[in-house]
């Protein structure tokens, strides 16, 4: 157990350090950055904003982590965000305002998200299409579906109950934070208390060995795509509720890239296998902190993308064993390995 904890610590060490350094930088640049106020029984402040605005990304990163752990990838989450938001807003705007309407809207949006996940999972697990291509289909088509739902318009809604999921408060905290936290806790319990986590890691680590050990890998793969789409659906509700509208073209645009980044920064490798939900949350927070920092520090908007890229590059480099070895210098470049050095890979005879 200690070895495992040590490993997790090690894996998350650099992302956590990066997050802290970033926050520290914020504190130095603007001493009021950490200030949190209680107004009308609600907490406000940059830190709360980071959590609140980061909630959709956290959700999607959690779903994406499981997909990536099976050696897959889901590019369609941004489109699912748009579809989910469009359907919910359409229902809310067409029906009398009320908690009942809102709940039906949530149900419809999440039901449709589920179906979209089933579609992705079917393409990947049953038809055996490469995940990047399979989900690319919905990534492209999904924006169209969202536009069809919204009739090509931006649907604005004015429903207090609907907006709660994006900007409401409970126990002085924004509702979005609580929902993301709940999903994280539930997902963590689900994968670690049941055997799901182990089976997903086995499938991602060695699909053929897992098949021969009797795992129903197709079913598992299917499941993770459904879960990922569901997370994206919830995120879609949050995003649309936050801005009181559904924008089929821009809701969740490029969020799949941020989510993949969050997962990778959080220590889950794109080659599948071992995954860390906690890491994904840290990764998502890191990315959201970056965005908030950029605004708080008043970095010119045209430099934002570049600034983000530099920070992410730094984290990735710090996580790379090869790079760290280089940093440490020559004499420790060849650590004594307990296992025999593997024989060289078969070398192709080339001209």
């Amino acid at each position: 157990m200690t070895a495992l904890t040590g490993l997790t610590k090690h894996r998350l060490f650099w992302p956590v350090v990066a997050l802290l350094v970033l926050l520290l930088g914020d504190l130095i640049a603007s001493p009021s950055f950490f200030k949190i106020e209680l107004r009308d029984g609600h907490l406000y402040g940059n830190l709360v904003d980071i959590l609140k605005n980061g909630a959709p990304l956290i959700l999607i990163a959690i779903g994406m982590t499981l997909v990536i752990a099976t050696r897959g990838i889901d590019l369609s989450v941004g489109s699912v965000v748009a579809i989910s938001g469009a359907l919910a807003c359409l229902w809310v705007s067409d029906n009398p305002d009320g908690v009942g309407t809102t709940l039906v809207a949530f149900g419809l949006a999440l039901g449709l998200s589920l179906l979209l996940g089933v579609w992705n999972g079917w393409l990947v697990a049953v038809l055996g299409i490469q995940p990047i291509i399979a989900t690319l289909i919905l990534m492209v088509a999904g924006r169209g579906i969202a536009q069809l739902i919204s009739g090509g318009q931006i649907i604005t809604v004015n429903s207090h109950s609907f907006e709660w999921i994006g900007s409401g408060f409970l126990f002085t905290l924004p509702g979005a934070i609580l929902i993301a936290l709940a999903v994280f806790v539930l997902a963590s319990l689900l994968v670690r208390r049941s055997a799901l986590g182990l089976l997903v890691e086995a499938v991602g680590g060695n699909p053929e060995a897992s098949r021969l050990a009797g795992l129903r890998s197709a079913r598992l793969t299917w499941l993770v795509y459904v879960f990922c789409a569901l997370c994206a659906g919830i995120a879609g509700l949050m995003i649309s509720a936050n801005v009181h509208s559904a924008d089929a073209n821009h809701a969740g645009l490029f969020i799949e890239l941020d989510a993949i980044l969050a997962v990778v920064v959080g220590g889950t490798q794109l080659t599948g296998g071992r995954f860390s939900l906690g890491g994904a949350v840290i990764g998502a927070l890191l990315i959201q902190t970056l965005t908030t920092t950029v605004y708080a520090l008043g970095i010119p908007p045209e430099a934002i993308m570049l600034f983000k890229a530099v920070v992410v590059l730094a984290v990735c480099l710090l996580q790379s064993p090869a790079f760290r070895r280089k940093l440490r210098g020559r004499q420790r470049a060849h650590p004594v390995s307990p296992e025999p050095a593997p024989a060289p890979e078969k070398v192709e005879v080339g001209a």
Partner: protein
Amino acid sequence: MPEPQPMVRMSGIRKEFPGVLALDDVAFRMFPGEVHALMGENGAGKSTLIKVLTGVYGVDAGTIELNGGAVAFSGPGEAQQAGVSTVYQEVNLCPNLSVAENVCLGREPRRFGRIQWGPMRRRAEELLARLDVHVDVSAELSTCSIAVQQLVAIARALDVDARVLVLDEPTSSLDTGEVEQLLKVVRSLREQGLAILFVSHFIDQVFAVADRMTVLRNGKLIGEYRTADITPVELVTKMIGKELRVLETLEDSGPTRAEVAGAPVLLSAEDLGRKGGVEPFSLDVHAGEVVGLAGLLGSGRTELARLLFGADHADSGSVRVDGELTNLRTPRAGLDHRIAFLSENRKSEGLVEELTVRENIVLALQASRGWARPLSRRRQDEIARKYIETLDIRPADPEALVGNLSGGNQQKVLLARWLITEPRLLILDEPTRGIDIGAKTEIQRLVTQLSADGMAVVYISAELEEVLRLSHRVVVLRDRKVVAQRENQGLTADDVMATMAEGVQA
């Protein structure tokens, strides 16, 4: 008559990898205009010798002479420049490029940096014509048959004025007609004065094409023979050798042949077969019986075992478990019938290397329980500790990453994975390959004990002594066909070898 100057002369070759002496004082020579077969079972050192010859590996000791002059290649490119070309087992070509592009890849005729397509196509056509292959060289390679692809690979190797051509298992994925075509090409290249090194597991082909052969075993040179002076049986004997009698003390605790013959039939296969895998066969396995599968590599041993488990699904025949007709379409079906299969490919088909010993051990049991009924962590630890102790897995740490264990210990982890599912039929494919002699003995002892407890075992091993020592019955395969099933009574290794080599129906 004085012997001509050898094209290749290697002497005193020694090559060591961490923990393994791959080649020990091996000598080897090849003459121009001759096909030379390099023979040996897995791990004999064939591949290492080829890689030393083609410059992939350096040597720890020994000399290599090419056409009388000492050489020391620092890489395959250099070897190729000197005229030593290799065609590897898996075709190393680009299926998405045209035939001509594949033949000339990396040395396309150019002018001002532009590829000259006309001359390139003509050059490819010429080279292929030399092999008697006439195809549209602008066709995409993937549209050609595997045989043609193999010949394209050879054409590519010949393009660099090769004097020595190494063919590593060139026929392993070809059908009978295609093999003939390839052998014809090999013979015609021999007429053109090339020295050809031919590596194949197919005894027939070796005898059909080779003039001379060198046999290796466990990294040592066994001898060099003219094909005319050696029979298939002698060759197989030399390849396999007589193993140390490690297990002479193996207590005779297993059930006798008569006992298992009287036990109920657990699994019964009838005309079970799979195209390209193994030809239809029938086999009964009784409870408590150890059935040994003997045959050379590529004879269909593994393919047969995979059908019995459901790793591949059969395209003909039927299987009965306890007399009931079943369909073993997936490994899961096999697992549900309490059949377990330990693959010969530990790394690619067994271990999940980034998971721990504990996780690897419980994987199959957990899979059969489903994700919703997890084994508690305490139960997992219990199981892992118990089997680490029983099988003496080292290091005795359930949380060690399995990828860091030695081969023998990895094998024991996989054995533990299957044993905890309490199988009724345990299929072991080469369970003792590549592991040290101590672990070997332990695994063999375990098999005897399991059989005494009533578990049926299908045991595959390239080591005949091992098969004979453990089995009640021996099934012999040759060229993807079951050629004999014999009770292990007074059966000797020589009998089995004769059947393996010549396919004599017993």
